[in-house]
């Protein structure tokens, strides 16, 4: 056996109820590899609340709280307060919610948790629609994508509105750490998890989470699709620590977005004009990231102000 590049230890059990080829299942697997067993995860109504809990079993080797869809941020604020009251300062408190539970229904709760400077990690796994209930559009669905509520027929061309920029919303709250992660890059994924684990204060992950039935592609293509998402500039990988942006997967030239779009049934109706718009957006996104990386390369004076009475920074990695 060659040397493993990510931890061997498994904290996600087999036998869970995810679809074959599930991107969110890989996201949870890598997340728990990076966090280790001293972790509690709050999961709202979403695919993962079903995946994890064929009663009386659980797919997680760590504690899990099943909470209401709008309450993930509030629930991890409460879990953190309880952990601190019990003296469990080394406990990783994590919220793990879908794009609907984060960018739509749970947005106030996420904002509240960030604003309260809760010492916790919020993970949004983004499969770009309400997949658990059968592919209804969310605010994170990309523009033009087919869903059951944004059909493609006659003059209807899929979702009309652009995808909500959740990272911009989160960064406006000045979290201590925010990053984009993609299970097609496991080493980068786990490294970011380990980095976030060693910090205190509000942290946020935007995780790319490919969905074979919802995006209409064959289940064996999950990893290939994720690579294309990053290499085309549709889902670039970067991290922002105390306002300083760093790109973690650098591309000299972006791959053609056509490769990404044509691989999925939800985009198959795109006209050359619609493809061109996606390409321009990807190029603009990439140029913006490069510019922001350059502009923030000298860290600004630290704007992180810990609230009064906050616990002292804890030692880095704890397992």
């Amino acid at each position: 056996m060659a040397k493993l590049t990510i931890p061997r230890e498994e904290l996600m059990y087999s036998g869970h109820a995810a679809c074959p080829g599930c991107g969110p299942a890989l996201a949870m697997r890598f997340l728990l590899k990076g966090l280790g067993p001293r972790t509690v995860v709050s999961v709202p109504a979403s695919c993962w609340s079903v995946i994890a809990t064929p009663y009386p079993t659980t797919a997680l080797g760590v504690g899990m709280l099943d909470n209401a869809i709008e309450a993930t941020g509030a629930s991890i604020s409460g879990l953190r307060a309880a952990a601190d009251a019990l003296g469990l300062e080394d406990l990783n408190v994590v919220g793990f919610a879908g794009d609907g539970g984060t960018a739509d229904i749970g947005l106030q709760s996420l904002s509240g948790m960030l604003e309260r400077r809760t010492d916790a990690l919020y993970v949004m796994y983004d499969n770009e629609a309400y997949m658990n209930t059968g592919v209804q559009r969310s605010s994170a669905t990309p523009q033009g994508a087919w869903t059951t509520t944004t059909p493609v027929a006659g003059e209807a061309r899929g979702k009309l509105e652009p995808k909500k920029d959740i990272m911009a919303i989160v960064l406006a709250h000045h979290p201590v750490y925010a990053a984009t992660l993609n299970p097609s890059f496991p080493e980068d994924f786990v490294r970011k998890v380990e980095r976030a684990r060693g910090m205190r204060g509000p942290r946020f992950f935007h995780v790319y989470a490919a969905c074979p039935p919802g995006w209409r592609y064959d289940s064996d293509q999950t990893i290939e699709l994720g690579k294309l998402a990053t290499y085309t500039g549709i889902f670039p990988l970067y991290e922002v620590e105390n306002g300083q942006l760093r790109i973690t997967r650098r591309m000299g030239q972006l791959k053609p977005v056509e490769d990404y779009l044509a691989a999925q049934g939800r985009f198959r109706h795109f006209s050359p004009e619609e493809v061109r718009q996606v390409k321009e957006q990807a190029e603009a996104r990439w140029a913006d990231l490069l510019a922001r990386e350059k502009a923030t390369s000298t860290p600004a004076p630290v704007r992180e102000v810990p609230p009064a009475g906050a616990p002292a920074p804890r030692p880095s990695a704890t397992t």
Partner: protein
Amino acid sequence: MLEIRFHGRGGQGAVVASELLAQAVFFDGKVAQSFPFFGVERRGAPVTAFTRIDDHPIELRSFIEHPDVVVVLDPGLLRDTPVTGGLKPGGLLLVNSPQAPGAFSLPQGGTLATVDATRIAVGRKVGTATMPVVNTAMLGALARVTGAFTEASLERAIVAFVPSHPEENRAAARDGAESVRMEPVAPSSRPSPPSEEAAPLPFPEGPVASLPSNILHTSSWRTLRPVIDRDRCTRCNFCWEFCPDDAFDFDAEGFPVVKLLYCKGCGICATECPPDAIQMVTEA
């Protein structure tokens, strides 16, 4: 009243089959009712759907516990799902299988029928090779063996309600009707064997799920199985790394081994394997 229960997997079209059947019955001028059992509706997971047919409005609203007809869209379900549970004596069991009806058993007596709906769906390009959509071929066969609804109404329902490739689906329904085989079966004189239902899980006290999910096996979700060629394998671990079901282990020499109790057959390992040492083969 005729009561029909469909057993399939998420993605095969069992729920749509029950709805198309109901539409065909309405076109015949009769009354129908169709609804699914809402369980785990993941792609590949076992799915149950129900249809009732009558000449009069149907007031019954319960699940169908004692069907006249059981339709099995995937023969793999016969391994570990009690699909014939409650089937009436003299009832009909229709199975998607390349085998002759005699390959299956029906201790309570009745009629056995088989149709190779997977081959028909693949041939007519309905669905994909990894997940052929077999429902319309099964409905064609069902129309022929029960006579409970006309094949003309079924084709009309397919054209009206199947959103993609209606013509291919219509051809698949015709193929199903033409190629279905049936055989009457006398009741077995021997007492029926004890039910092979799994022992109930040991439920813990209270609302806390405390057992690991790996006591549940997901092998029945699979239609394709990864086979590793050890001569080509470089032990790079990509298959292990990218498996969403943690369905890989390593043997003493460090070669990957598929945990077949859990593999759902997604095919990621075969696609990601750098030396192409993994092939996906059809489950027997």
